[in-house]
């Protein structure tokens, strides 16, 4: 019987010929990533002292302070300091801070490669599936176990195959494709499962866009969101210093999928996920005229170079509405430099954007852009749960960077193609 991508990666990591869905296997971890908010400070540091007080392989561990940077309070500053000091104490050379959300940094530094196992103390670790890695989020105590011996037990997941045919129309982005998929499968529709995204609608996308899709696999409850590595994957990784990798990885023709969904890009319009569930998805035109107080372009879902570039194209020569705050946080220092070099940040600033540090802070309501009661925020990030970005009396609308930019101009939710035309 044929194997899925997940089964192939897990079999290799478990040192077995083959594994199949439902089996529980112990696998060797290739990269273990911790952030500041859920890293050493939660359960890990104190318990390390009572176990084997060393990390199994410091070179395979990456620590990234991203949620509390730049710190907005003394407590946050203390957490970042604690994380930094802990990395030093355990000789973790791969420590980063103030450079942006961990998943983007992991990708840009070549820590996520096709066919490898990546675990991280953040649920959006599944973004790494865009590069063909079995990448998944785990809790802090689970991470403590990984740090001890480099292994983790995993249940081999069944796979849901999501096929996107065709090519995205102008004004429609990968984020729209992502939201449409989530609306169809549901917030818990892929719980415990792997999702595999295939088809011309996926392979035609650049890596920046693919990541906006796999990043949100967890919003359907999925363990991983995988894409077949290809020439674009190779180009991305080569540009980021990676020379090896299995670029032929794909599911066998006779592999078994628990379900298959097929969608057509040509049918897709700009989408919005309305409060307070990510699967509460509708076309932007259906919720037009909802007033917007804050528009946010950023995060590990929607703050990459391509996102900023698209937003800048729409905003060029335009101004944000007077009563809207337009906040932009490039997803990494690299994204910042590229966007700066190409004049994108300048364009955004001229349209009235406040360009922030690369950070997780806005998306998860920790600092830099919290919203007040009665306000609506349209955001290119990944979650619209009640209270996430600030007040529980606020509403969060998830959309593509283009739709966010368009709403910043009009002051209400709008199909960005209407703004483009004007």
């Amino acid at each position, binding site marked *: 019987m044929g194997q899925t991508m997940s089964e192939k990666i897990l079999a290799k990591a478990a040192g077995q010929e083959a594994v199949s869905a439902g089996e529980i296997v112990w696998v060797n971890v290739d990269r273990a990533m911790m952030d500041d908010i859920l890293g050493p400070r*939660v*359960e890990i540091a104190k318990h390390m002292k009572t*176990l084997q007080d060393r990390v199994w392989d410091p070179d395979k561990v990456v620590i990234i302070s991203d949620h509390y940077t730049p710190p907005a309070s003394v*407590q946050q500053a203390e957490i970042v300091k604690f994380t930094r000091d802990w990395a030093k104490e355990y000789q973790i050379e791969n420590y980063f801070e103030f450079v942006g959300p961990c998943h983007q940094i992991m990708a840009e530094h070549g820590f996520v490669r096709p066919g490898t196992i990546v675990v991280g103390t953040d649920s959006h670790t599944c973004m790494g599936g865009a590069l063909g890695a079995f990448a998944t989020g785990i809790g802090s105590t689970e991470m403590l176990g990984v740090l001890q011996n480099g292994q983790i037990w995993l249940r081999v997941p069944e796979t849901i195959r999501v096929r996107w045919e065709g090519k995205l129309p102008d004004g429609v982005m990968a984020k729209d494709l992502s939201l449409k998929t989530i609306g169809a499968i549901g*917030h818990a529709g892929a719980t415990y499962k792997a999702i595999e995204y295939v088809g011309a609608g996926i392979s035609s996308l650049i890596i920046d866009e693919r990541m906006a899709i796999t990043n949100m696999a967890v919003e359907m409850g999925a363990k991983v969101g995988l894409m077949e590595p290809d020439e674009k994957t190779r180009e991305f990784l080569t540009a980021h210093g990676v020379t090896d990798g299995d670029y032929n990885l794909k599911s066998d023709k006779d592999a078994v999928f628990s379900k298959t969904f097929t969608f057509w890009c040509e049918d897709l319009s700009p989408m919005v996920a309305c409060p307070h569930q990510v699967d509460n998805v509708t076309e932007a035109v259906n919720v037009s005229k909802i007033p917007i107080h804050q528009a946010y372009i950023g995060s590990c879902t929607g703050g990459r170079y391509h996102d900023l570039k698209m937003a800048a194209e729409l905003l060029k020569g335009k101004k944000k509405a007077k009563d809207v705050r337009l906040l932009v946080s490039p997803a990494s220092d690299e994204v910042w430099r590229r966007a700066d070099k190409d004049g994108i940040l300048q364009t955004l600033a001229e349209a009235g954007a406040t360009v922030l540090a690369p950070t997780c802070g806005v998306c998860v309501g*920790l600092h830099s852009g919290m919203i007040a009661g009665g306000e609506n925020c349209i955001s290119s990030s990944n979650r619209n749960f009640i209270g*996430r970005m600030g007040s*529980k009396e606020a509403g969060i609308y998830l959309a593509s960077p283009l739709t966010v930019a368009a709403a910043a101009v009009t002051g209400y939710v709008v199909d960005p193609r209407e703004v483009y035309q004007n």
Partner: protein
Amino acid sequence: MAQMEGSVIKFGNNINTDIISPPQYMELGIEESAKYAMSAVRPDFAEVVRTNKIVVAGDNFGSGSSRETSPLSLKYLGVDAVVAKFFARIFYRNSINVGLFVVECADADRIAENDRIRIDYQNGVIYNNTKSEEYSCTRIPDHLMKLIEKGGLVAFLKSELPGIMKMR
């Protein structure tokens, strides 16, 4: 501990991790941040769980973040067990790792706030004493039960690590 009895505090579907442990308070220690658990939907939660120590909910409890502060907050506030129709993957695993009982029950909707229930983990049965009903629930597999009974993954690692290391 094969059984557990207590009064219920009831929730609906999709109680996500931003509700269970609001991110704004996570920079505080668990002692402080736990006070805000569930506050977006149940401001009196920390108060009510002093007496109603079994959380019962619908679909997809614990969806969202990988934050272990969610089960840790519930445990810190004295929650004995969470019964839901089903759990989000990371939350389920985190709960077991920190020693919080999590039980899946398809009939969770039949259980109401303040009902007195008894959970028999070993046999996979929930008795609703208030309504004189019984429901089947998933048995926690033996290897995970062992882990919870030890008090979570850390305690388990301490006793089993030599064995686990040999597996490499």
